[in-house]
């Protein structure tokens, strides 16, 4: 059987379910930037009924990394004897003045890596340099960096450190629900974050605030099924946490991975670029791992941070208050070629996705 034909039939059936359930206007927030991109990639919006709004949330860890952290990474990269290693996602994000890519073109040592282990290997290969790994990510990524820090410690690698910029998702979702400006009928919950943290952290959203949540995978069929499950709950006046992505998400997530995070990192407040400080949504090295905190290992001076450039509406966009096309800079001063704010620069940002897929 031709797999694509069968998938297409299943997609059509799910679209029919969605259309049947959306009998009044509904707004769903996809928290995760990877969902934003997947929806655009498969052109799924063009198959949704007119009454259903799919709104992007602040689920792009690159977009919500404060300018200050980018500035710090750039300043570190310019220090002699320091190499800044980073995921490719970060390299073009603008700080207050320029990006890591621009700094690299001016001679700073910046290395794109696929895995934090590559950065550790780099540190082992270059014992006369200090390697700073830019620690961005949500809970899908944080355990990989924490595990790398443990390996560094076990192997006695002293020249490896991490610039902490981790963010934690569920409290951020709670802040969104509590914000008087946002109006979300249901959450498309990030499947891979949940594969690590488990389903339980979303229970208060449904039980306390009455917002249905469906843990959703990233294939087109997963997203369609997740949306169908959500709109059917909303239509029936229900508010539960459901799991569409059972093949990858056991109820308890990955407790071993979360224990590793807990061993190395402790909660702190975090600044979400364009949104503000959300208490308890950050992570930083515990005192016993302070020697791997790049902020103290490579002290640098940074310009007074400007969080978002003037006119930039990334904050409102990330809260789902504005469509990217409603930002005054969108498509004019702010395009992928000359991005003003992080939502346009990041490959996953809501504005970049909107520009690329035209709201498709």
């Amino acid at each position: 059987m031709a797999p694509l034909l069968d998938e297409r039939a299943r997609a059509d059936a799910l679209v029919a379910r969605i259309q049947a359930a959306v009998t009044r206007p509904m707004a769903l927030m996809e928290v995760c930037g990877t969902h934003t991109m997947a929806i655009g990639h498969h052109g799924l919006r063009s198959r949704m009924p007119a009454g259903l709004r799919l709104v992007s949330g602040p689920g792009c860890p690159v977009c919500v990394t404060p300018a200050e952290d980018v500035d710090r990474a750039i300043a570190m990269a310019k220090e002699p004897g320091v190499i800044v290693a980073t995921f490719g996602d970060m390299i073009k994000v603008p700080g207050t003045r320029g990006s890591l890519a621009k700094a690299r073109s001016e001679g700073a040592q910046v290395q794109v890596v696929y895995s934090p282990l590559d950065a550790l290997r780099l540190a082992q290969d270059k014992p006369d340099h200090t390697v700073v790994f830019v620690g961005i990510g949500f809970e899908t990524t944080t355990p990989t960096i924490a595990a790398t820090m443990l390996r560094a410690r076990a192997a006695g690698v002293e020249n490896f450190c991490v610039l902490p910029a981790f963010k934690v998702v569920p409290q951020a979702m709670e802040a969104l629900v509590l914000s008087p400006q946002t109006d979300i009928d249901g959450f498309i919950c990030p499947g891979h974050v949940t594969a690590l943290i488990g389903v339980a952290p979303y229970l208060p959203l449904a039980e306390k605030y009455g917002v249905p949540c469906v843990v959703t995978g990233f294939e087109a069929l997963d997203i369609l099924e997740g949306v169908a499950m959500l709109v059917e709950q909303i239509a029936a006046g229900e508010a539960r946490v459901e799991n569409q992505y059972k093949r990858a998400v056991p109820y308890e997530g990955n407790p071993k991975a979360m224990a590793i995070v807990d061993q190395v990192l402790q909660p702190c407040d975090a600044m979400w670029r364009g949104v503000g400080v959300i208490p308890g949504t950050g992570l930083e090295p515990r005192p016993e791992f302070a020697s791997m905190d790049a902020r103290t290992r490579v002290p640098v001076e940074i310009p007074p941070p400007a969080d978002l450039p003037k006119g930039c509406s990334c904050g409102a966009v990330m809260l789902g208050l504005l469509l990217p096309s409603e930002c005054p800079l969108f498509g004019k001063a702010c395009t992928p070629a000359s991005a003003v704010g992080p939502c346009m620069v990041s490959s996953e940002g809501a504005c970049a996705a909107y520009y690329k897929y035209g709201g498709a």
Partner: protein
Amino acid sequence: MCLAVPGKVLELEGSMGRVDFGGIQRELCMDLLPEIELGSWVLAHAGFAIQILDEEEAQKTLALFREWADFEAENSLGPTPLDGVEPSGGGDGSPA
């Protein structure tokens, strides 16, 4: 925020594993899945295996095990005349 891709564990040595992703392979660190077994399917992210995939559940969601047939063997990936005919399904060209 999380691109993670399914693959099958072919070899294990210490806490590293060789994982196959449909024709390409990569070593993944298994520190986050210490109980992992040979032949399991895992999700790969940033050089680590982050979660085990439930094979039975996966079968129900066809997409995971969608087989793009080996190109050389098939000699073609099935072109699709675009005049209103449904996509013939790139990848297999074979009835089963």
